[in-house]
């Protein structure tokens, strides 16, 4: 392959003498930023496929056991789910604002937005674990050997119009397995998000070079919006099953 080499000196070629944010393997900031975004999006593609497989499983069982799924979904409280949806939407908004201020290099404002996002994330987890997971765990409604499906374990959930006990405990476990697996993996993503956001806040606080480059905040933002995206589908699929 014929090539020619530039006549200028290698140091000049590398071009990172003047921009401290540029990593050595890149030619300019434009290339670096777009590489990061492409890399982040291809990571998000893996996340889409990751959750996608779960949604496929869910859809197949929902189709097969549609009546049972409607009955068992009465165990979930759509009001709590709705509050959580709104919390995540708010957090997404504040994250987007954080990225906005990062482009303007207003680190204090970025941190205020990120702090609000973390607050929302924590609230989400508290509601999820404290008000939704814990009562089910307490009433032996977690799938596994300790699973119980009787008047005692269901006393809180039996409502007029539904007949939970008519559902086979096996199918109920199947639904709850899917519920705990999907919301659990989503919850793990929220938890990771909190850790990453706190780390990013420290960087902004210290105003390190990696905080100066807005693309790092942008990448965390992309991840966080993805977490929101998953919940947007989880909410109607688990909490709002029509009869």
């Amino acid at each position: 392959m014929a090539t020619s080499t530039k006549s200028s000196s290698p140091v000049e070629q590398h071009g990172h003498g003047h921009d401290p944010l540029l990593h050595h393997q890149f030619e300019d900031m434009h290339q670096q930023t777009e590489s990061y975004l492409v890399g982040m999006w291809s990571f998000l593609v893996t996340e889409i496929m990751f959750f996608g497989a779960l949604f496929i499983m869910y859809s197949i069982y929902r189709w097969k056991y549609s009546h049972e799924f409607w009955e068992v979904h009465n165990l979930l409280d759509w009001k709590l789910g709705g509050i959580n949806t709104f919390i995540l939407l708010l957090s997404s908004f504040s994250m987007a604002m954080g990225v906005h201020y990062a482009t303007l290099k207003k680190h204090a404002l970025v941190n205020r937005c990120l702090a609000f996002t973390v607050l929302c994330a924590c609230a989400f987890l508290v509601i999820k674990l404290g008000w939704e997971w814990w009562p089910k765990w307490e009433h032996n409604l977690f799938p596994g050997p300790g699973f119980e499906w009787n008047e005692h374990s269901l006393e809180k959930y039996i409502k007029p119009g539904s007949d939970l006990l008519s559902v086979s405990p096996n199918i109920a476990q199947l639904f709850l397995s899917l519920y705990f697996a999907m919301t659990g993996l989503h919850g793990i993503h929220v938890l990771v998000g909190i850790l990453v956001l706190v780390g990013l806040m420290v960087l902004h606080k210290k105003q390190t070079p990696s905080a100066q480059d807005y693309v790092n905040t942008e990448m965390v933002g992309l991840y966080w919006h993805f977490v929101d995206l998953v919940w947007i589908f989880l909410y109607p699929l688990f909490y709002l099953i029509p009869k």
Partner: protein
Amino acid sequence: MSAVAGPTVAPGPEERTNYLNKSHTIKSWLLTGDHKRIAILYLISVSFFFFLGSLAASMIRLELTSPTGTMMSSEAYNKMFTAHGVIMIFFFLIPAIPAVLGNFLIPLMVGARDLAFPRLNLASWYLYVLGGLFGIVAICMGGVDTGWTFYTPYSSLYSNSQVTLTICGAFVAGFSSIFTGINFIATIHKMRAPGLTWFKLPLFVWATYATSIIIVLGTPVVAITLLLVVAERVFHFGVFSPELGGDPVLFQHLFWFYSHPAVYIMILPGMGVISELIACFSRRKVFGYEFVAFSSLAIAGIGFLVWGHHMFVTSQSMYQGVVFSFLTFLVAIPSAIKVFNWTSTIYKGSVHWNAPFVWALGFMGLFLIGGLTGLYLGSLSTDVHLTGTYFIVAHFHYVMVGGTIMAFMGGLHFWWPKMFGRMYPDSWGKASAIITFFGFNFTFFPQFVVGYLGMPRRYHYYYFEPTWQVWHVLSTVGASILAIGFILPAFYLTWSIKNGKPAGPNPWGAKGLEWETDSPPPTENFRHPPIVTEGAYNYDPVADAEAVAKSAAKAGD
């Protein structure tokens, strides 16, 4: 042409700093961000796992020489073939070409200083090692007996072996290949040297790009599926459990949604390597370059639509089986395009019989048989007879060992001078290629026959049909020859690192961008950033014939 842009200042290779002699501490290797060093780390670890997997394979072959299995119990045999499969697939075949040759070559071929994300690259190697450790610990704690496919409900409800640990290993190794894939995608998209357009890229880069797409789109699906198997074992979640109304076949759907494309993760980079070798040693531009390039993408795309042919004899609907069978035949088209175009490239080329070319020819012969027998298995009615027999075992070994490992060895022989700056003895290279080729056919052709006769895979007793013994003994003898073919390179290649002749920047007279820099390359790859003006295979037969005549005259002096 290569001489034109070669390094203009040329002191001996020892005196120039390169990625190998830049620093010598262990820390500088373990914390490196340099893609070339990470490739060497991968080379060492991948070779180690290949050795482990081969040990298991030799135990299997020895056991099968007797129809009543004298060496080990049935449980031990189950664990042996599972160890062979898991190690070879997750820890050798999938990372072998992308993570070793791809890591080393992609930045060189696109004219970049490094991959886009060096730290992610290093993290990928550590994840690979961690996954491998999980696998080894699982073997030490008693092994797994599910087969590498981890089919439910056996793996989730019944097996008493180390399924959880092994799955964790495969899961972690999966993320290692995802990181590699993300890195390649960003690098190939964004880091190409000025002037290096897509259609000037070497076909190896195209193939690696297609592979990365498969990795990124497929691996997460198997990751979550295996995770649910672990959840089923540990927490008694019941997504695949027939007791709870789940469908175990759903596991197979999701498993093969990744694992069939994973076959292309293993073979596509090999095809890329072969394109490079054929072009270089025939001194011709690859015939139908665009077709070969797009056939890689076509294989990646169609490869996602054929997974159901692994499930023809399960409870999968037969109507869906018909569709999958049809789509399976479609994959044969891009694969055939590649083979025909390689053949046309060699035809009337000016062929140079160096060791890498012999390996490449071996690949073509074996891949041809492997690919064509795949058609038998892709058609519904023959598959019902052949499924779960040694016919399948022989088929995928022809593709995986005959294809991928021949390509890996060919690529290693081709780029070895670039990696270490030294030449190995060419005749030894040719000899081991020929030994491997014959040993391979000896090993696996008898398996086609015995499989067609009905020998089931994963059985070590066949006393009900003792006449099969002769085929198994043949196969085992062949495997010993095959072993020689793989052991020889280990010796002469390592020998050459210290004692080989210095290779110079371009020992083969090849045209790729990677041959324009020193061997071994400096840490920053190119002392002056290259600007590309010509395609990757701009060979000139006339000039080449002159060069040959010149060197012949020189030899005559």
